[in-house]
């Protein structure tokens, strides 16, 4: 059986829709370090089956683009929450944590959300300059954070 990594870094977003690529791009950057204690996952959007990826972690960090957060990024602890995102094909991370509790009967590991400020999400659009700068700042924040958890 494959060993479970201490930290799950999960970036989601569509790389083909401008600044929506911020989450996957951050993961690509961290993945280059090949740290076996950090598992990097990307997907277009969160779905209920992702509860199976959350098991047996010390910590989970979701990374997403956000149109409304402060610049360059915001980092916060997540709580399980039954919200309205179930009415969509895409779930929020809080809703995913809630589903985890329902499916497995226990709370999900401690989870955090890193929101990186994005501006333009058009199909085929490149990353905006501002978003690229925000991404660099976020990468600079995540790298020491990951080291602090993995020791």
């Amino acid at each position, binding site marked *: 059986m494959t060993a479970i990594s201490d930290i799950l870094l999960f970036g*989601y*977003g*569509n*790389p*083909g*829709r*401008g*600044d*929506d690529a911020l989450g*996957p791009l951050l993961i690509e950057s961290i993945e280059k370090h090949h740290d076996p204690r950090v598992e990097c*996952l*990307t*997907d*277009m*959007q969160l*779905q*209920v*089956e992702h*509860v*199976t990826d959350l098991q047996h972690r010390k910590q989970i960090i979701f990374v*997403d*683009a*956000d*149109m*409304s*957060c402060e610049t360059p990024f915001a980092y916060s602890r997540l709580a399980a929450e*039954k*919200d*309205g*995102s*179930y*009415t*969509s*094909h*895409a779930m*929020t991370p809080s*809703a995913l944590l*809630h*589903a985890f509790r*329902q*499916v497995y009967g226990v709370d999900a590991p401690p989870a955090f959300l890193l*929101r990186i400020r*994005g501006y333009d*999400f*058009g*199909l*085929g659009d490149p990353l905006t300059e501002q978003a690229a700068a925000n991404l660099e700042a976020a990468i600079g924040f995540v790298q020491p954070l990951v080291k602090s958890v993995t020791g």
Partner: protein
Amino acid sequence: MTNPESFRRIAIDPVSRVEGHGKITLLLDADNHVQEARFHIVEFRGFEKFIQGRPYEEVPYFVQRLCGICPVSHHLAAGKAVDQLVGVDVLTPTATKLRRLLHFGQTLQSHALHFFHLSSPDLLFGFGSHLAHRNIVGIIEDYPDLALKGVKLRKYGQQVIEAIAGKRIHGAAAIPGGMNKPLSEEDRQRLLADIGEIIGWCSEAVALNEKIHLEHPENHNFAKLNSNFLSMVAPDGALELYHGGLRARKADGSTIFDHLDYRKYFEVIREEVRPWSYMKFPYLTALGRESGWYRVGPLARVNNCDFISTPLAEAARRRFKAYGDGGFVQDTLGYHWARMIEALHCGEAIQLLLNDPEITGSDLVTHGERQREGIGVIEAPRGTLFHHYKIDEQGLIEKANLIVSTTSNNQAMNESVRSVANAYLDGQEITEGLLNHLEVAVRAYDPCLSCATHALGKMPLQVELIDAAGNVVDRLTKGSRGELERTL
């Protein structure tokens, strides 16, 4: 004819639990009857522009970005078109089987998502139940066993995709003339270990759908239409999801065309543009604009095929046909039943392919001479998907035409919405009950609105009622967390 502009308009924006942003406008006459329904999909634009100018060999890779729900379908349809661009009509046996396996995995996970997470709440709790409970969380609370199976079914389909394509996004499976990498023996064994359980769960899902549909006769006429059907079939008439000829039949079962080479699709299908919609309205040329609209997807496929090649799914199809008394099942909610029959077929087909010694072969690519035009068609989870490309001398995409499944179902969705609105609209108020019923009708088609962007804070939801004079008389706004607010 009454002028549509004089109708009162009710706009419902968007439809929840379908991907992206949708909007429904109901055009009422003076007597508050719904004369016309317009289902808007505002994100459906720019596909062709997105593709034009790209090198053809990259197309299967970046079309995955068109959709967060069915990237593999776009990948494979584009892959088939690009095969033709490099002059390859027939792939190696291993490459063909790997693509089929990938496609079955994609269809299984997509169908599982739709039924277990999006539609089963409607069916198990009833359309009128409160939205706060009529969702996947409600299913988890009340039917934990069912919900967990849904999670695992979806996960299994994703594992098939990952085993063949690599990453969940940006996977590279189909390349010009074949496949990128073989399936490892380790992955084959890993997937085989669970497939028996997967088939069992799919069988249970079929049985559940049969039970729900047969025990609720009030559902039979819900959003029901009398439509033509279009789908791909195998040369022997079997259900075919990856490669075959096109079959179109009228509502009475008579054949319009059969086993048509899909590279001639433009001879039998035309696309009408309407000023109020970004989406085109395809129709069967032989029947004309008024009556040539058709339905695609699971309902069309299971109705249209002569049989299914795997035993459990075929037995389920026979029960489905028996319900239809031998004719077409036109119940719109029959989509769910047909969808699970297909999921069962996918499970059985995956098992067969994993036990095929050629599936781990290494002869993956065929070469040919470059052509200037390529057309790829597959049966995506939501229906027939067309990718058509023309390239210039440098190999750059000069022209692209895509007909996605949701576009083919465009008119049918409008007709179903109109039917439901006429049955449930009472006066001039947009009630939660009406909204619920309209959403159930739309959800049966599982429209993919191609809004794969989901950034936090970017989910505006609004319901508007506009009178004949253009005045907004009611407005309901739904926040990103599902909260409703009447803002007028």
